[in-house]
């Protein structure tokens, strides 16, 4: 008897196209479902549009002039590409971790407290509690609890990335977008981040863009393969890495191009 239930879809991209300034089209009618509290990996060669696709989920592209998305990105059924969408709320709901760790030039404590002060009205005590919880959640607390006033920039690369994750989860987002979060850090720190991502899966919906196919295979539930702005194949990670249906996917993941 099959008791498995289809997970709820947190994000649904429908006919999503994207244009850079000057009209260059980077995405072509992408349809992609992101199940809730699962890890979806997005893979593909450089320039295939995987990061561009990710950046539409919290509309971070709108910080740049002349970039526009067409189609729909439905977050819990609501199209976040609608101009009326409140971007501050959207970015609290959909947090983002970048390739290069980006701590703010302030203390470890203030880095994590920053989104709390921005989005919520909390007492000092509540902020302190939530900062600790976020640092615990990002597996960083034990390493920094005695140096909370130290600059975030003074931490190691791997610690800085976990600080950024702590900052992102402090705002209690529903979705975490990760754009190659381990490409700038060493292998041991990478494994720590991967363990962390697997733990965060219980609380958040995670979409991770990665160049590291072993990483996608290790940590994700589903994998989408992008090529030249189009989604070639999407499916359970186990199937994509053992028996992909599309020849192009096979060629990419076995290193025949890319």
């Amino acid at each position, binding site marked *: 008897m099959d008791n498995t239930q289809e997970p709820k879809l947190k994000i649904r991209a429908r006919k999503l196209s994207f244009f850079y300034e000057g009209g260059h089209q980077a995405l072509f009618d992408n349809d992609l479902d992101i199940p809730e509290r699962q890890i979806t990996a997005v893979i593909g060669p450089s320039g295939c549009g995987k990061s561009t696709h990710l950046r539409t989920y919290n509309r971070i592209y709108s910080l740049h002039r002349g970039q526009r998305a067409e189609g729909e990105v439905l977050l819990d059924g609501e199209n976040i590409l609608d101009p009326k969408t409140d971007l501050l709320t959207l970015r609290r709901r959909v947090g983002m971790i970048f390739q290069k760790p980006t701590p703010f030039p302030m203390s470890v404590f203030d880095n994590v407290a920053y989104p709390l002060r921005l989005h919520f009205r909390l007492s000092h005590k509540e902020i302190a509690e939530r900062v600790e919880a976020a640092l615990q959640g990002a597996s960083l607390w034990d390493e920094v609890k005695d140096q909370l006033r130290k600059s975030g920039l003074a931490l190691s690369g791997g610690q800085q990335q976990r600080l950024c994750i702590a900052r992102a989860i402090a705002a209690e987002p529903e979705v975490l977008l990760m754009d190659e979060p381990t490409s700038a850090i060493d292998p041991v720190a990478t494994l720590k981040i991967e363990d962390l991502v697997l733990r965060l899966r219980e609380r958040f919906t995670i979409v991770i863009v990665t160049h590291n*196919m*072993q990483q996608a*295979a290790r940590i994700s539930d589903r994998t989408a393969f992008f090529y030249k702005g189009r989604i070639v194949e999407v499916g359970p990670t186990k*199937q994509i*890495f*053992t*028996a*992909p249906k599309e020849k192009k*996917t*096979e060629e990419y*993941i*076995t*290193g*025949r191009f890319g």
Partner: protein
Amino acid sequence: MRDRFTFEIESLKQRLLDLATAADRALVRAIRAVDGASPDEARAVITADSAIDAEEVTIEEECLKLMALYQPVAGDLRLIVTILKVNGELERVADLASNIAARAIDMAAAPAPAECRFDFAPIVERAHKMLRGALDAFVCHRPDQARAIILEDDAVDALNAACYAAARERLPQHPAQAGYLLDCVTISHCVERIADIATNICEDVIYLEEGQIVRHQKRLAQ
């Protein structure tokens, strides 16, 4: 990196095919030893088995090395897994050929009267054809051929059952030939196992080509 991997995997495939040739040769010689009552031929099969065992271990080590060094996925992963499995199956074919050869030595030492003898040609020809066809399907990427071969296994099972029934029938009339008749049953069973191995290889070929595990499907469907 890709070129190096391609070179290594092609070398590994060639080694597996050489092993297949050695296992096939062991089977042919073992059956010839039975038919020709030739203990020398039989002893040569048994002696050659240790080289096949050693080669099987070497191929397995190569597979493990490639998996550790290249972390293959998709078709590459399925190919290495298939080589690993077919490698073990071929070593079993050679073991069964050795078992047949051992029976051939016994039988040559105490020949039986003509009315007790068996004609192994029908079961051997079918099983041998299945084995060669399975290896051919592997080399030529032919899952359709593999599926057709799997269907032939029932006929070999029936021939083996017929051999067992005939031995039971002859035993009361020729109690002094009990040892000989048991040897015949053992040979028939070994040949039937070789057909099973051909079936296993065919299932591996389907997995390799289509990514679909078809083992046990018949039993599960019953």
